[in-house]
């Protein structure tokens, strides 16, 4: 198991990267009135065949030939299901894969969201050419972030993995996410 849901996000996105996704969208939604938290991850990678899709939730079926899936999906699914929620994964060959995990927000076994800024910063540092999108909604407040807008502001020729840029992104995300959810997500 992962200690934070933001680590599950980091791990699931590794599958998207292994599947050669170039555009990866992360959505987080917290709704206190409905006592719900939803995490969505969607990529435009190569997708999975119906046969592989039917097997990915089972950690013991996955073998070396399907190395891009393993325990990660099982961990995320278990995190959702032990917290009164549900898990769904869909995929289409040539189109991409999408994962949705839903949680009862107040459930005693729901893992904390943790350091979302750290997850995103790590992903950008290690994959500076991929486009990442974050849409994070807490009740009526929303924060949107995309590496596209960072690239626009920077102009061409500067890698997002440059230390100065990464340091900016790290602080920018931490500040904005703190304003949205009152600090490291709980």
């Amino acid at each position: 198991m992962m200690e934070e849901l933001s680590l599950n996000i980091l791990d699931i996105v590794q599958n998207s990267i292994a599947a050669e996704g170039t555009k990866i969208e992360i959505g987080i939604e917290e709704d206190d009135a409905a006592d719900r938290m939803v995490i969505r991850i969607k990529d435009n990678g190569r997708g999975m065949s119906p046969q592989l899709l039917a097997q990915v939730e089972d950690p013991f079926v996955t073998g070396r030939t399907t190395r891009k899936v393993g325990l990660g999906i099982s961990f995320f699914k278990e995190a959702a299901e032990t917290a009164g929620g549900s898990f769904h994964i869909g995929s289409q060959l040539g189109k991409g894969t999408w994962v949705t995990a839903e949680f009862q927000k107040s459930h005693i076994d729901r893992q904390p969201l943790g350091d979302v800024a750290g997850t995103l910063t790590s992903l950008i540092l290690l994959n500076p050419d991929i486009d990442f999108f974050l849409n994070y909604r807490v009740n009526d407040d929303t924060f949107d972030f995309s590496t596209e807008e960072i690239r626009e502001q920077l102009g061409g020729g500067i890698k997002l993995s440059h230390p100065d840029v990464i340091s900016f992104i790290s602080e920018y995300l931490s500040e904005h996410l703190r304003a949205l959810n009152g600090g490291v997500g709980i």
Partner: protein
Amino acid sequence: MKSLEELAAIRDKMKNNAAVRESDGDEIRIVVGMATCGIAAGARPVLNAIMEELEKRDIKNVTVAQTGCIGMCKLEPIVDVYIPGKEKVSYVLMKPEKVGRIIAEHVVNGRPVLEYTIGAYEK
């Protein structure tokens, strides 16, 4: 609160130093295991510590990259340091607290921190 407009200042600063980043010939590579096992064992805070240390010391000739699972899950987080012309050094059971010495002694001064390496673990 920080705004994206501040990126313009970073852009202008970098334009003035354009030449610095171009010579990629003697790049040092730091590679972090970021498979499920690495992440579960704490690779993210290690990676963040590496990033902060490089920024703090203003080290520019280092590329940070990721790798998958190499089958030694119980030794994760694993960090490999590649210095051109030298042998790869693998650090195991990494923690953010170990990063400072590795950057100072190995990346900057070329002397691996032997007690953190996989060789020390196996003894």
